[in-house]
């Protein structure tokens, strides 16, 4: 019953998307067509129907309706409710439905609230949105229907991959997807503006909240994902340059560039064609990411729910969407007139540098990620890892961060380094101190540069507040300062982790004491325990920092019984200055247990800094949306008064 309702809602939504596409195309030609007038309600209803379909799937999973094939292959009645709920998007079909639902809902919101741009531009934007959605509807309905029934119903579900049975699953995929799909709105805005030749600061202001929103979700999604992989895989690492990770990083890099160029367009009416181009690139990267993750075409440690046969479908969608967008861009780019001019030493100049460097880093990550595919066509099987990605991206990212230190201090249009150089004295001194400290400790080149930059940036990032009355500082500026400070902290965390981590791998008997860095661990005991759908061996470690009061750590080696599989559950002890990380391995024949321990000074700064980056985005978003709302209300009031006074 619910499955039928979900399927019907999905078909109806697809039909409405078709209508929306036709209406959007008509809006480019003539006004006054009744279909054109109905476009906004159509987009809103389409959004509701697609969300209803997703809701139906969630209900099916929560009830464990085993007459639905997807539930039977991916769920189990004995699974905790949270994982039944989150399991609805922990598989291929469900995740694609989530993608479509978020996309349609976003289109509905645009139709509902966006009134600043010329009506034709909005309608063209909605048409573009429908064009992209239709491909995904077709994909869902013809190639990966989440509501396919089983007759007779399965007696019991096959369960969910134990590595996915973690609270991370409830947050990570939806946040990332909302980010991916939020960029589709930026993409549609870019296409709509190109089609109607309306690339203007108003367009940038309309697009900016969507870029900001998508970027915040992408940031959070990457953060969750990285922390989840960090404690779940039990490898002690937080970023592996795995294709699936790169798939989320590439849209983020493009969105970060877009976020900065859209600000230039909104404030200064410059970088017009470039911003539109980035809008296209950012969503293209989302699609490349989805393709890489969903097709399983590349070897990944996070490869779940992959189905190579479906990769071709996404590849076709990717080619059609990007091809169409680039064709529109090629035809119309010449008609996008030149923006305002600026000097090399100016806020715009710094932001151009940021954009170019981010694009360069994006190119490095893209080439490195796709290289194994390219190599395979000539018969070589290769994998590309940190030895390539770390130095190659650093060549672009580190200079960008240097400019980030002083760029926000520059004035728009034209400025001189002489004016701001006194402000840079303190950051530069700190950076030199960091450099000296790093050299004294003898750390590697990349961590050394990272550490020095992080020291300087911590102060430089808050310098834009220098000499201002803090009460009068507007939210977007607070947002920028917070986000840049977050980048500095995260960079410091990364440098500290790679430079100062202490690691120990031992085989020990209960009763022994293990020392790692400043920690002294008393290996107390090993005992079996049981959970709802697993049993485990649990070690108890009493960890004392520098002779202080001991903290109890309980790493586990878990065995799940549906599907039968084991996982290593790491145990973490967090202090203000870092994390102790413990993993329990297997038992050797002589009765000793394998233990792997890491002391990672200041690693938590990576996620703390990342959270600050997202918070900065949120502050900026609030600031922008609040002032937009105030303006909207003021305009409405004037219109209302005029109506009351009568003609």
């Amino acid at each position: 019953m619910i499955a039928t309702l979900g399927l019907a809602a999905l078909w109806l939504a697809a039909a409405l998307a078709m209508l929306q596409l036709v209406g959007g195309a008509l809006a480019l030609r003539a006004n006054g067509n009744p279909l054109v007038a109905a476009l906004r309600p159509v987009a809103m209803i389409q959004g509701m129907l697609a969300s209803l379909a997703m809701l139906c799937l969630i209900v099916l999973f929560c009830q464990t309706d085993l007459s639905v094939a997807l539930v039977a292959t991916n769920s189990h009645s004995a699974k905790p409710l949270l994982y039944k709920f989150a399991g609805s998007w922990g598989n291929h079909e469900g995740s694609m439905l989530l993608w479509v639902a978020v996309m349609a809902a976003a289109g509905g919101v645009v139709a509902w609230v966006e009134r600043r741009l010329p009506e034709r531009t909005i309608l063209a934007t909605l048409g573009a949105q429908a064009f992209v959605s239709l491909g995904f509807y077709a994909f869902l309905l013809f190639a990966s229907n989440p509501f396919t029934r089983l007759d007779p119903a399965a007696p019991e579900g096959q369960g969910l991959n134990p590595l996915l049975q973690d609270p991370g699953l409830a947050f990570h995929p939806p946040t990332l997807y909302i980010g991916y799909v939020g960029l589709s709105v930026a993409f549609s805005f870019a296409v709509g503006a190109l089609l109607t030749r309306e690339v203007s600061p108003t367009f940038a202001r309309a697009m900016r909240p969507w870029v900001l929103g998508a970027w915040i979700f992408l940031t959070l999604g990457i953060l969750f994902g990285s922390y989840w992989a960090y404690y779940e895989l039990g490898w002690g690492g937080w970023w592996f340059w795995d294709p699936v990770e790169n798939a989320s990083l590439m849209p983020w890099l493009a969105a970060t560039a877009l976020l900065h160029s859209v600000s230039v367009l909104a404030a200064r009416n410059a970088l017009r064609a470039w911003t539109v181009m980035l809008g296209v690139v950012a969503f293209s990267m989302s699609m490349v990411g989805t393709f890489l993750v969903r097709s399983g075409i590349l070897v990944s440690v996070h490869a779940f729910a992959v189905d190579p046969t479906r990769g071709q479908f996404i590849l076709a969608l990717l080619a059609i969407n990007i091809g169409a967008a680039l064709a529109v861009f090629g035809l119309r780019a010449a008609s996008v007139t030149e923006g305002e001019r600026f000097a090399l030493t100016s806020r715009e100049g710094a932001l151009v540098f940021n954009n170019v460097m981010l694009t360069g880093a994006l190119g490095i990550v893209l080439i490195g990620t796709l290289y194994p595919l390219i190599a395979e066509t000539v018969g070589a099987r290769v994998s590309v890892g940190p030895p390539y990605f770390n130095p190659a991206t650093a060549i672009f990212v580190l200079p960008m961060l240097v400019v980030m230190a002083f760029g926000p201090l520059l004035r728009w249009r034209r400025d001189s380094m002489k004016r701001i150089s006194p402000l840079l004295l303190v950051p530069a001194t700190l950076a030199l101190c960091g450099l000296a400290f790093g050299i004294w400790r003898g750390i590697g080149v990349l961590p050394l540069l990272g550490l020095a930059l992080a020291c300087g940036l911590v102060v430089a990032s808050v310098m834009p507040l220098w000499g201002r009355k803090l009460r009068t500082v507007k939210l977007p500026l607070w947002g920028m300062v917070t986000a840049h400070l977050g980048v500095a902290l995260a960079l410091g965390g990364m440098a500290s982790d790679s430079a100062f981590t202490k690691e120990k791998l031992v085989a020990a008997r209960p009763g022994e004491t293990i020392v790692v860095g400043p920690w002294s661990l008393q290996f107390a005991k090993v005992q079996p325990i049981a959970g709802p759908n697993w049993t485990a061996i649990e070690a108890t470690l009493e960890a004392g920092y520098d002779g202080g009061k001991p903290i109890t750590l309980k790493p586990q080696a878990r065995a799940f019984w549906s599907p039968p599989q084991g996982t290593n559950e790491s145990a973490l002890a967090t202090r203000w200055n870092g994390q102790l990380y413990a993993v329990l391995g297997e038992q050797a024949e002589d009765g000793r247990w394998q233990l792997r321990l890491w002391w990672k000074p200041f690693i938590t700064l990576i996620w703390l800094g990342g959270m600050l980056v997202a918070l900065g985005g949120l502050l900026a978003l609030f600031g922008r949306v609040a002032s937009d709302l105030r303006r909207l209300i003021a305009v409405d009031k004037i219109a209302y008064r005029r109506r009351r006074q009568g003609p």
Partner: protein
Amino acid sequence: MNQPIKAKHQRLVLVLVALAALIGAGLLAAWALRSQASFFYLPAEMAAQPPEVGRAVRLGGMVELGSIQREADGVTIRFVITDGKARVPVRFTGIVPDLFKENSGAVAEGKRGPDGVFVADNLLAKHDEKYVPREMKDMTAGQARQAVEETK
């Protein structure tokens, strides 16, 4: 360069800067990939054309039945990866993945030592019961069964 540049020129300059950066990124990537991409070897390939000592590569195949041995330190294991045609001894120090077992597929990341033993920094086994490392897929059907037959 403190005067705003003429509009026409400015656009040209920006386009050139962007192009230069992208081409630079491409060249840098091509150069770095030549030296840093790690190649995947099957045991037969490694026997025929061994990679230079110390270069990071990946070795994939079946873990030979009865080959896993533990060293006295309790955390180092030695085993043999085979594809039915050649055998490569491997040493690994660390916690082995849950699904790493004899007669099952595995990929070892690491370097070939001067003594011919492959020193693995990392082991990748099947991630779950349904998932097989893609590089293993080609062999699991034919070669793997053959490998198992021959090692019995």
